[in-house]
């Protein structure tokens, strides 16, 4: 019995046969439509199911269905809430969909089941206007408090030019400024604790320790942190909204910028989700090229983290050295892709170009050069006793807490849980590679750092294997949906010429269906959930980024520590604000 039948029959046994509607999706996730009345009971059943529970709330988002053309066999719905859960024991996901039909939709909150649901529900409220009954603090999260409308609704304009000229009369300005006044009660913070008056410290959005435009409101007792409320959204660019306006092909450069340190690592889940929708098989060479380039970006991203983390702890030298090494990676990347940070290099059905002549030498040089640098950094940073004093035993959490809060990537592995999607759910041919999954023991700042440092060594191993075993053949699939198709083939028959013409002028049209694809990105699990409505653009693009839940976790693990510890924790969590806000 397949995993889908297995869980569906378990659900039917528990809740009765007729209560769910199954939907077939291209990603072959068990996808069940469940009514809003019973969703909380189903979620809590799945989380606590005796046989291999679904412990992690992987994602929670919504779909505005009002402009859909193709949704045969799906229940009537105005807004659909989508819950994606992950079971580690089963090594599989499940997707639950809740149809909401009214114009003022609401559903019960899942925050009592998963802490991680808090921000996700706030985001859905902010973007779609769906209310969550019983949510502890249902405020806007990404948009300004004064924003009118809910951006991801289909009726909301996508461009500034559709909104009329911006005006700021005096009364509106005063209103906006009044909204910016800090009132602790609105943030769910108390002014006093016992007899002591607490101090509030506004950290950011412009602060050297927050690595980007993040605002943290600290509630302090002396220098000890009583509570933190993060204020995000300063880096929100509406990446998901943009996807609804771009063709499948022209959206690729936007993904580069979602996690701006990850480069092509961001293209990876997106193009693979599109390929799944279109049923495109890609050639081996393209697969290995993709792995090689994304591992280069993993090292590059970890190097930025390494330097800035050390800098947060007051070390000024490593950041210069790691950035220097990052330049070496960019030399290789720009020689192969033609650009440095945002090469926009993967394509639907392959990669842009074949590897250039002499790429082996460049890659080989880097493989020879880098290990001794890592040794140097070990000596300078990881073995430094002051560094250890600042990081060992700080920001500790357990595997259970991490799973409850939706933590993936190095943050999860630092707790001793060897969960790496490259190994557990291999994609793009990762099953053919030899590498280890470094894990920590204590789940503190030092272990998180250690895991990342070891990961760089493993990435180097993977790159070395790519270099030695690069397959020959095409770098792009010959599938008609490949965009843009290879030019030389178009000159041979009229069919490919027509395809080329259509795909380049309009963009490819993907069959109506939906698919999710995720990769083990630099920061954790990054997935793209695409819904095609049978047109040249995506109907809904949901980007589940790892930094979002990771940042949500920060207040929980920082309580009781001091401000300097908070800097160590923020550094060790390694979020990127563009990845949080999208």
């Amino acid at each position, binding site marked *: 019995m397949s995993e889908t039948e297995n869980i569906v029959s378990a659900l039917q046994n528990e809740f009765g046969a007729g209560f769910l509607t199954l939907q077939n999706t291209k990603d072959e996730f068990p996808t069940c439509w469940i009514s809003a009345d019973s969703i909380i009971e189903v979620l809590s059943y799945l989380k606590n199911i005796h046989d291999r529970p679904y412990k992690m709330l992987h994602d929670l988002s919504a779909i505005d269905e009002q402009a859909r053309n193709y949704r045969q066999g799906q229940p009537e719905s105005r807004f659909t809430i989508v819950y994606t859960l992950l079971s580690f024991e089963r090594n599989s996901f499940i997707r639950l969909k809740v149809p909401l039909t009214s114009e003022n939709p609401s559903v019960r909150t899942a925050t009592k089941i998963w802490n991680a649901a808090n921000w996700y529900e706030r985001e859905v409220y902010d973007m779609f206007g769906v209310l969550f009954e019983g949510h502890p603090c249902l405020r806007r999260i990404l948009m300004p408090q004064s924003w009118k409308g809910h951006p991801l609704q289909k009726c909301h304009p996508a461009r500034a030019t559709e909104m009329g000229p911006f005006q700021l009369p005096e009364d509106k300005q005063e209103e906006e400024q009044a909204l910016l006044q800090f009132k602790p009660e609105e943030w769910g913070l108390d002014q006093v604790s016992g007899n002591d008056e607490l101090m509030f410290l506004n950290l950011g959005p412009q*602060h050297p320790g927050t690595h980007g435009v993040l605002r943290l409101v600290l509630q302090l007792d002396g220098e000890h942190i009583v509570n933190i409320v993060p204020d995000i959204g300063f880096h929100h660019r509406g990446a998901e909204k943009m996807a609804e306006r771009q063709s499948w092909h022209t959206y690729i450069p936007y993904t580069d910028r979602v996690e701006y340190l990850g480069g092509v690592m961001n293209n990876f889940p997106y193009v693979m989700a599109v390929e799944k929708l279109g049923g495109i098989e890609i050639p081996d060479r393209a697969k290995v090229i993709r792995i090689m380039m994304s591992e280069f970006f993993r090292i590059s991203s970890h190097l930025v983290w390494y330097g800035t983390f050390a800098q947060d*702890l*007051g070390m*000024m030298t490593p950041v210069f050295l790691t950035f220097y090494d990052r330049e070496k990676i960019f030399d290789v990347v720009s020689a192969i892709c033609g650009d440095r940070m945002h090469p926009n290099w993967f394509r639907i059905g392959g990669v842009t170009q074949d590897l250039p002549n002499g790429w082996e030498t460049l890659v080989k040089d880097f493989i020879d050069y880098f290990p001794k640098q890592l040794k140097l950094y070990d000596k300078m940073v990881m073995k430094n006793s002051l560094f250890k004093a600042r990081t060992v035993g700080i920001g500790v959490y357990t595997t259970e807490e991490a799973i409850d809060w939706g933590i993936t990537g190095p943050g999860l592995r630092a707790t001793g849980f060897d969960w790496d999607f490259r190994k557990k759910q291999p994609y793009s041919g990762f099953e053919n590679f030899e590498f280890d999954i470094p894990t920590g023991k204590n789940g503190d700042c030092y272990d998180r750092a250690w895991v990342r440092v070891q990961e760089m060594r493993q990435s180097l191993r993977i790159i070395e294997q790519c270099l030695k075993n690069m397959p020959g053949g095409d770098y792009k699939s010959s599938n008609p949906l490949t965009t843009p198709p290879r030019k030389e083939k178009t000159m041979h028959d009229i069919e490919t010429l027509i395809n080329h013409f259509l795909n380049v002028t309009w963009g490819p049209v993907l069959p109506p269906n939906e698919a999710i694809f995720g990769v083990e990105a630099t920061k954790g699990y990054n997935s793209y959930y695409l819904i095609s409505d049978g047109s040249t653009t995506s109907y809904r693009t949901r980007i589940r980024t790892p930094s979002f839940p990771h940042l949500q976790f920060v207040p929980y693990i920082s309580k009781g520590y001091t401000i300097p510890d908070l800097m160590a924790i923020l550094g060790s969590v390694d979020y990127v604000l563009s990845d949080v806000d999208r």
Partner: protein
Amino acid sequence: MNPIWAHILTLVLVLLVMVTIAAGLIYVERRMLAVWQDRLGPNRTGPFGLLQVLADMIKIFFKEDWIPKFADKRVFVLAPMIIMMTILMTFAVIPFTPLISVINLNIGVLFFLAMSSLGAYSVVLAGWSSNNKYSLLGAIRGSAQMLSYEVFMGISLMGVVVMAGTFNLHDIVMAQHSIWYFIPQFVGFIVFFIAGIAETHRLPFDIPEAESELVAGYHSEYSGMKFGMFFVGEYLGITLISALIVTLYFGGWRGPHFLPPVVWFLIKMFVFILIFILMRASLPRPRYDQLMSYGWKILLPLSLLNLLITGACVLYFAPGH
């Protein structure tokens, strides 16, 4: 020459040279850090970028001298002056050569300790008057750090005083004719050096102004020349501590005769200044409570023990015992 004129000349000379050295250190530090960090550093203004300091100074002089509306104006203006004044006054007691020193005080060591205690006011007042939470946190950290490290600093110095039998810095240099004090007083030297870093709040002890935590700590709100005074004050502090280390532990101006005494003094001083800069390039910053417990739990017992043993030895080997 009239002795009064000679005296004034020395005074002006010391003042000018020290301020110039401190300003020049900004360039030296930036270049040396660059060397240790695989980069170039300032190299565009003038030959080898030597005029960078001048350019910075011109810029800082012409910046708007802004005092925040919410600040306590008088105290805000006073704070940066205190740090400059206390440090510059301490230079008065340092014997650069047997002949060049502004004043030959018989309580030179005590004068230095008194002045460095007063220096703590600058940090506290700057943080307090800025009326900013980051500044205040920096000031609280700074005052606690400076006051506690002063204790070990004073005690660690006493070993030298006991050996030389005087508070006079001239006589302490003279007393080192056979052996430089860093050998018998090695523990004292180390404690003094660490306490010296804490006094000047340089990395790794730059906790009052920890950039990644407190933005710029107690001087967050300062700009223009008032910020410049804190900035130069920090380098003056480094120069002062290095000069004192040389005087107290490394034989002051003593050295083989092929170079004049003042050159020996400056060479030794620059070695220590470079060590200060190298430490900044290589170490992370401990946490505030780690710094305090390190001070009270390790440095204090160590310096007391050092004083005790030194005293016992001096008494034991004293003539006529």
